């Protein structure tokens, strides 16, 4: 044990190892934070992608920071709700008329300084009336003081007005609604006019208790720090949850495999005879057992649960190539005097295997374990890319699969693939670098070359 601690101290000499260790700790921290910030069930519910959760979000919007790299500024999505009374962009006035009806005026004021048109705008209207439907009219004021009467209509209790789908508006503007509303009339080619816009929603309600709340949702072409996918889901949910999933899958698989392999190799060497022979035979069978196809088969026939796949992965990897390496080392250790001594004072077989044989290989085991983690992290992603990801849990591989099958590469939606890919790469490199450094610390013979 002391030897291990001393070796770990030696790690300080390797800057790459220190950096990767810090990175791994950061990732573990981020995972723990994610698990508490978005509980497991909440993450699964969100990722199922119901309309209710994601209606405010634009489809396939790139992250906001992409504007930093482009001279043509893309519109960022935003929403303004009339319920937010302290928001300076929203103003709500109520007037009572002589006949007892009320006039509610909601004014949204916002700056639009982008070089492209938004995807869509919509008004989400909530009103609890009993029988008399309120009337709503929408007016649009551009920075150059033009006024457009967008529409007037009576509303249901929960109603949505989508600007881009209003053909009448298109005829008034003589253009696609989103272009007509934002375009600068002085320009020949459609170019957005920059400046302060106003949207005035005037509602007439006829019952004393009726409320009227309207939310203006603007779907730009950018959203948030991570962007959104084809189901309007915020990729941040899956990117954040992908971290604990990848780490736990990678670590559990690596731990499960190496430790069982170690113990089995020790048992084989210690008992020898038919036990050893059987283990070697199984290893040989395992070497022609197609690992990935069998996992695919299990995923298709039984269940795609990530935990079942984890179990199968461990079972199929136990009798891997590692067993041969461990066996060769145990063969030498078995002949050592201290084992002879243990045997002579009557130590049990289990005691010798677990306390005297296996601990000797731990220096060899640790680097191997760490280097194995990225392999399994990628295995999970690989299965997801084949469409065999866990159906409920959001993971990085599933984002890549969604992006690929929805043509992200053809349409140039690079953020969709690059974000999970970058996270996968960083995770695997952190473990691989640490593993390499550990290998040098624990196996000094490698240090010279």
């Amino acid at each position, binding site marked *: 044990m002391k030897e291990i601690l001393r070796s770990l101290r030696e790690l300080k000499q390797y800057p*790459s190892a220190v950096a990767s260790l810090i990175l791994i700790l950061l990732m573990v921290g981020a995972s723990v934070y994610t698990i508490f910030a978005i509980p497991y069930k909440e993450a699964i519910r969100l990722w199922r992608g119901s309309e209710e959760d994601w209606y405010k979000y634009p489809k396939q919007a790139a992250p906001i920071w992409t504007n930093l790299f482009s001279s043509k500024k893309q519109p960022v999505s935003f929403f303004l709700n009339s319920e937010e009374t302290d928001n300076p962009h929203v103003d709500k006035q109520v007037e009572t008329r002589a006949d007892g009806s009320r006039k509610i005026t909601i004014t949204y004021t916002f700056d639009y300084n982008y070089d492209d048109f938004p995807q869509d705008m919509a008004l989400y209207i909530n009103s609890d009336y009993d029988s008399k439907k309120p009337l709503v009219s929408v007016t649009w004021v551009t920075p150059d003081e033009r006024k457009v009467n967008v529409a007037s209509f009576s509303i249901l209790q929960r109603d949505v007005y989508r600007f881009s789908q209003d053909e009448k508006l298109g005829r008034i503007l003589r253009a696609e609604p989103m272009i007509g509303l934002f375009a600068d009339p002085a320009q020949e080619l459609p170019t957005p006019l920059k400046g302060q816009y106003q949207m005035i929603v005037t509602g007439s309600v006829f019952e004393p208790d009726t409320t009227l709340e309207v939310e203006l949702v603007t779907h730009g072409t950018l959203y948030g720090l991570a962007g959104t996918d084809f189901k309007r889901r915020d990729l941040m949910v899956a990117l954040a949850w992908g971290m604990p999933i990848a780490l736990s899958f990678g670590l559990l698989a690596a731990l499960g495999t190496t430790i069982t392999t170690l113990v089995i190799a020790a048992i084989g060497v210690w008992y020898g005879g038919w036990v050893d022979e059987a283990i070697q035979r199984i290893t*040989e*069978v*395992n*070497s*022609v*057992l*197609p*690992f*990935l*196809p*069998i996992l*695919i*088969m*299990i*995923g*298709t*026939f*039984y269940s795609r649960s990530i935990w079942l796949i984890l179990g199968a992965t461990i079972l199929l990897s136990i009798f891997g*190539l590692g067993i041969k390496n461990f066996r060769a080392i145990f063969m030498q250790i078995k002949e050592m005097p201290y084992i002879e001594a243990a045997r002579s004072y009557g130590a049990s077989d289990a005691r010798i295997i677990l306390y005297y044989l296996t601990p000797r290989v731990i220096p060899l085991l640790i680097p191997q374990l760490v*280097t194995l983690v*990225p*392999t399994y992290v*990628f295995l999970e*992603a*690989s299965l997801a*890319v*084949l*469409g*065999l990801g866990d159906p409920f849990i959001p993971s990085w591989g599933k984002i*890549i699969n969604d992006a*690929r099958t929805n043509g992200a*590469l*053809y349409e*140039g939606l*690079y953020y969709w*693939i*690059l974000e999970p*890919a970058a996270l*996968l*790469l960083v995770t*695997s*490199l952190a*473990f*691989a*670098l640490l*593993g*390499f450094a550990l290998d040098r610390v624990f196996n000094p013979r*490698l240090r010279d*070359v």
Partner: protein
Amino acid sequence: MTAIAQNDLEQVESKPKKRTASAFQRVFKYSAARLASLLFSVIVAIFLTIIIANMGGYVDELRMGEIRETVVQAARANVAYRALPPDQFQALVETQIQEQAHVEGLDRPFLLRALNYMKNALTLNLGNAVRMTSDTGSKQVRLIILERLPPTLLLWGVSGFLLFFVEIGVALSLSRQYGSWLDKLFVTMAPLSTTPGWFFGIFLILIFASFLRVLPFGGMVDAPVPDNTLDYSLSLAKHLILPTLALTLSQVFLQIYNWRTFFLIYSSEDYVEIAKAKGLSDKAIERNYVLRPTLPSIITNFALTLIALWLGGPITETIFNWPGLGRAFYEAVQFYDTPVILGQTVIYAYLLAFTVFLLDYLYALVDPRVKIGGGSQP
């Protein structure tokens, strides 16, 4: 196998003069033993595959479906049954299906059924696919799989060759300039090999197909298939670049690092120093004193690479739309085409065993210290 090989080793050592005379016999004996042992492994592996598949009754369902289809078709074609009322016809068909199921042993215990299926699987006699068809329109699983085999072998072979020569070349040149910035660069890049081929593939598609638009996104040949052989090969070569590169990149860094280390270790041996002192040329030293003794370890290493290429195949092929086995596997998963999935698993077991066998031979071929059947294993 080890027991036989051990015997053989003793024989060889006791009668050194007869070595050449019995060479053929020895090779034959060794091959037979090795083949038998591998065949045994394949049989067990396929048996396990069947057991895993049939635990949920999938193979049984498959057989029942096939029996039903043939029985119903035969009954429909039979003129004598035409006059029967529908419910009687149905009952007749049902009894016939039950009888046929009994004949095929579907009512026998699980283990016996599994053995029966294993026999069918070993001969790839897996019946018909549910939805997939081969290019010739056949529904036979065997044909679908065999048709997809050549593209996979092509991709695998080209990547394997490329890997081998790039690795040897780069590793040798790095070992010559040990400690240079290039050497250090490759050492730091070694951890990149934890990333699988498809991952590199996505980046390659992104750069060369989507962004630069110089190479195709995927597929094996251009859409109207070129009719003359030259155009066909050119188109094939163009489509081969990215997948090969992806598979190569996924392995090359770690292997270069490993091989360079082997070369460095062997370059510091005494006999190399003596050769240098004798004034042999660098080339001769490299070829005779460094490369020769390292080849066996290199080949073992390379074996693992090739096996890794097999296992990385399905996903890389899927990403590149390469019409090989892996892509067929992906399609079968999408369609829930059970017979094809089973057949694929079986053929991968065969391919793996074949690779292992081939590499055993190569190993013995390059290392004069190991005679085939001489028993000293890595």
